[in-house]
């Protein structure tokens, strides 16, 4: 003990605290509850719920606007979210992207 600490900047473990953007899929029922998920457990449940809430809200308000959607793709610089409507719920795919992949 002590030697690694003596080397000041090694092995600080930045990954432990920073949230990585997740890669995986989750499904939501019509009430917004997460039924199944392949997202890593390190990704906070609150974030999954927030993604799900945005997706369901968009799908529902589209239905109210007389443009019922079956699929929704949201592209960020470093993340892609794809949602498919499933009888009031949705299946959501979350995919991190490099800057090159996401360029227009």
């Amino acid at each position: 003990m002590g030697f690694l600490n003596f080397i000041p900047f090694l092995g600080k473990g930045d990954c432990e605290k920073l949230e990585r953007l997740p890669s995986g899929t989750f499904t939501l029922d019509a009430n917004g509850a997460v039924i199944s998920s392949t997202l890593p457990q390190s990704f906070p449940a609150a974030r999954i719920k927030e993604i799900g809430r945005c997706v369901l809200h968009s799908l529902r308000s589209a239905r109210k606007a007389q443009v019922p959607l079956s699929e929704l793709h949201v592209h960020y610089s470093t993340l892609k979210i794809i949602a498919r409507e499933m009888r009031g719920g949705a299946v959501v795919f979350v995919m991190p992207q490099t800057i090159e992949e996401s360029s227009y």
Partner: protein
Amino acid sequence: MAGSTKILILDDDEDFLALYQKLLSQHVTTAAAVLTAGTGHRALALLESEQIGVLIVDLNLPKMDGLQVISIVRRKHPQTRLVVLTSLHDEQFRARAYALGVDQYWIKPETDHETGLFLEAMEALMRRDAGIGFRGVQNKSLGDIVQLECLAQSTSILRITHGAAEGRLWLVRGELIDAETQSLTGEAAFQKILSWPEGTFESLPGDETRPRTIFSSIQGLLLNTAQAIDEAVSQAPPQEDGSAATSLPPQGPVLGDLADYPGVECALVLDGETGATRDHWGMQDPRPLSEWMRKTVEEFRALGDTLHAGEMRRILATSNDRKLAISSVGKRDVCVAFQSSHTLETARETLRTILTKWAS
């Protein structure tokens, strides 16, 4: 010689702070001082009270992580250069940091050579601010920049880009001799380039052999161009809030051009800041779609901020009878609806073409 701006290092490792404060103080001579902060909150407080030219930030920090700090600083202090210095070898974090607007991303040096390179890079960053040239030219119009070049009797080529569009202005000893953009040349090209509300420019070495096509004085040309822009704005249809349009594209006539694109059924333009409907084409009542689009864009933008996923580039959606593609041009959000026979990929590409044309 030290300048007036300072360097701020943000890291939760006190030994690291002490070492790099010493190294930067010794080697970056253009910095007035090197300050340190152990938390994001402390760094933000220092940014409010001190003139910080470069903020060096670690990603892994207690309470407020580096990505959060970067997104706040980029919004509140856009002039501050941001440098990530982390031990994290991770492509995703590098991509996210660049997407949030950092200038450089460095892995913490492990050898003297790497440390030397890092210090040189910081010196170069500070010199860029303290030395030749100005930052903050976003407050100057292209007309101002051209006038400055003429007053300085420059012989140069100004290369101006606006979205996907590019234009060039040839100056010889302070006189504008030619302009070119897309298929236009001469005064018409100059007027087109001057109508671009924003963009970037760079000064290239001059070309005195360029044939002269512009013989009017620069003042006369600027006056004519300003009048043409004013007339175009005054002829624009009034907005919902009663105000006149503040920039040229996109306006009614431009939306009307959408009929030229195969498969386009209707379109909607919202103000990106207020969410108010600016224009629509091909729809009887734009309100329901407008309301959905405003809420959806707002919520997914907020989600992107929460996830630190960078800028929201576009939304594509499939409904029973059409495809929707949403993106932004300037400060406006644009939704274009396509026939259902279009694929999302085609819709995306067509929207891209439309926005490029509008931007130019």
